[in-house]
């Protein structure tokens, strides 16, 4: 396993997961380091997916700046305030 390809967060994630193989349906025959490598790789893949999602969402940001949408968000919150929800 090449550690330089993973971020610190990936390693922290795997460290917190590697002691719980039952939760992830990992082969019990795998060594601790093999489990670790699998979890780091899967965590990194998920994270790449999340980053890609965020990039795809850039278009939605433009919509969020739309005054009608802003007014709608503000208005709903004001209604909740008037209704005593906060």
């Amino acid at each position, binding site marked *: 396993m090449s550690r330089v390809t993973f971020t610190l967060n990936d390693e922290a994630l795997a460290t917190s997961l590697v002691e719980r193989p039952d939760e992830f349906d990992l082969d019990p025959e795998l060594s601790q380091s093999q489990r670790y490598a699998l979890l780091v790789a899967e965590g990194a893949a998920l994270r790449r997916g999340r980053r890609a*999602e965020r990039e795809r969402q850039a278009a939605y940001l433009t*919509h*969020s700046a739309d005054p009608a949408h802003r007014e709608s968000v503000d208005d709903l919150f004001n209604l909740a*305030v008037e209704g005593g929800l*906060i």
Partner: protein
Amino acid sequence: MLQRGVAYEIEIAGRAGTPLAVVLTKNSWNGRMLSAGAVPIGPRTEATSPFALPLDEDPAEVLDPSRLLAIPQEQIGRPVKELDDGSLHRLERALAELIDASRLLAEPPRGTRPIPGVIDYPRLGEIYYRKGHRIEGEAKRYVVVSHDLWNQKNITVLVARTTTQPKRPTDEFPIVQDGSAQVVCGELTALPASALDLDNRPQGQKRLGLQDMAAVARGFTQTHLLRDYLNPIEAEIGRVEG
């Protein structure tokens, strides 16, 4: 950027005192959207909901997910304290219960039997306009997502807005109504039921079916990180990174 699991001061014009609310939407949502989903902290003496959770460090105060609000980020002020992870997890579970996640996210999804009696309340899956409310001529639509045992007995409901403008990614904006609309799951919010127009419903499809509601519930697991319903590795990423 707002951090999930942290209680912030909420700035409300004309209000004496500054209420606190714990942000529940995930950090990546908070970093790019106008509003954040947050649960107000209130005095236990005013809480009537069975979903209200006493705070560990101060049992006189509670978090009530039935009052979850989509709060404009401009009104969210300084951070005050961080909720411990156990309390945050209990809050997620209480919200999941309120939106009937265990039924909707079962394989296959399970509905509930209609509640006997007069139906004079908005029901799970039904779509409504706001009463007397249009913005630039457009009437926004909301789908009811709290379960009917709650809706029948309470004066508030949880709703999420639908949109016909295409959005990505579809896990946070699940596609419903045969592809004609998407639900903005990150804007899940409580509203007084009286704000919904029960008499003037949208034409055509007035209620989402079971599969659509299952997709909406999955959307909430993503936007509000309901960890019990996520892939364990994804849930752990959520716990570590928000």
